[in-house]
């Protein structure tokens, strides 16, 4: 357990030191929301109908960009090697790392999503479902994105390759997440979508840490 605590502590400390880095997924989210608002022309009502989906896609993109740097820095300075060598259960350390990362990205995105929704004209009754679906969805996205990030970490490519690998896996999360918020915004009950989201999160939480560990080992050898 102490290894999880130490890892979380370290990653929070790093995030705090590299503040600019840690808030960037969030800044990216805010900026893209603004860009979408800008580009949409005069039709505010049509926008409101589509907006929950947009917010979801933007949150997804922001999460994805965040996961990209998740292991890269550690790979480059060699601390990832040390993490792989220590011989205690790797998935605990991985989970701790992902948890710390989610706290400074997904959680903040979730908290900001109602504001973003307002800017993009989401009807007020859709906002709780939007935030709720993101609260369930962003951890799943982080977990899935981490697999792609781990696989590509050694390649020194920008986040693009990871994005291409992860996006197909993101699709189910996106469909149910956006579905839940769209349903709520148009007055329907989003219960079914929420259950699916929960199932996806549970699955990701169970499998992803092991997949990430494996992927990290493999990518050391590129």
């Amino acid at each position, binding site marked *: 357990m102490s290894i999880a605590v130490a890892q979380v502590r370290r990653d929070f400390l790093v995030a705090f030191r590299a503040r600019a880095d840690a808030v960037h997924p969030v800044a990216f989210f805010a900026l893209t929301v603004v860009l979408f608002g800008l580009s949409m*022309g*005069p*039709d*505010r*009502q*049509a926008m409101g109908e589509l907006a929950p989906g947009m917010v979801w896609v933007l949150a997804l993109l922001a999460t994805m960009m965040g996961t990209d740097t998740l292991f890269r820095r550690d790979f480059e300075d060699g601390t990832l090697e040390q993490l792989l060598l220590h011989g205690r259960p790797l998935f605990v350390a991985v989970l701790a790392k992902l948890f710390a990362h989610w706290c400074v990205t997904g959680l903040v995105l979730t908290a900001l999503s109602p504001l973003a929704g307002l800017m993009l004209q989401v009807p007020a009754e859709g906002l709780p479902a939007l935030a709720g679906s993101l609260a369930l969805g962003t951890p799943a996205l982080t977990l899935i994105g981490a697999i792609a990030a781990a696989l590509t970490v050694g390649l020194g490519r920008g986040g693009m390759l990871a994005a291409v690998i992860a996006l197909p896996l993101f699709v189910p999360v996106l469909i149910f997440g956006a579905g839940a918020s769209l349903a709520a915004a148009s007055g329907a009950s989003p219960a079914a979508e929420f259950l699916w989201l929960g199932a996806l999160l549970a699955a990701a939480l169970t499998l992803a840490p092991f997949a990430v560990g494996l992927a990290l080992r493999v990518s050391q050898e590129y």
Partner: protein
Amino acid sequence: MNRARRGRLAAAVFLLAGTAATVALVLVALNENINAFHPPERIVNGTAPVGTTIRAGGMVTPGSVSRDAEGLGVTFVLSDFQGSDFPVRFVGILPDLFREGQGILVTGQLDAGGTFMAHEVLAKHDENYMPPEIADLAAHQAADP
């Protein structure tokens, strides 16, 4: 000419040419009006598309505002005071500045009958501020010169 001098000359020529091109394009562009909205004339003569969301603007024709007996519905006529005007229908809360003679921007769709079904009404305010008394005075002066 040595290498460094030649480099600087190239940079200067490049900068000059680029600036000239930019200025020329801006000047042409400023002459071209951006169709941010459709003036009454275009709505009336049928240039504005029917059934898609557009933005239109004009002045509220004095005496044309009629509110529904029930609910928030309101109908009024927008005009350019040069012979073109068209009816607008809106359901919702109007801005404080909405009044007769005021410049207004509406967003919505033109229906087949030529009525503009607005889902948003914005009031444009000009740069003049004055106390009500002076405004009254000015209005009187304008009325009887």
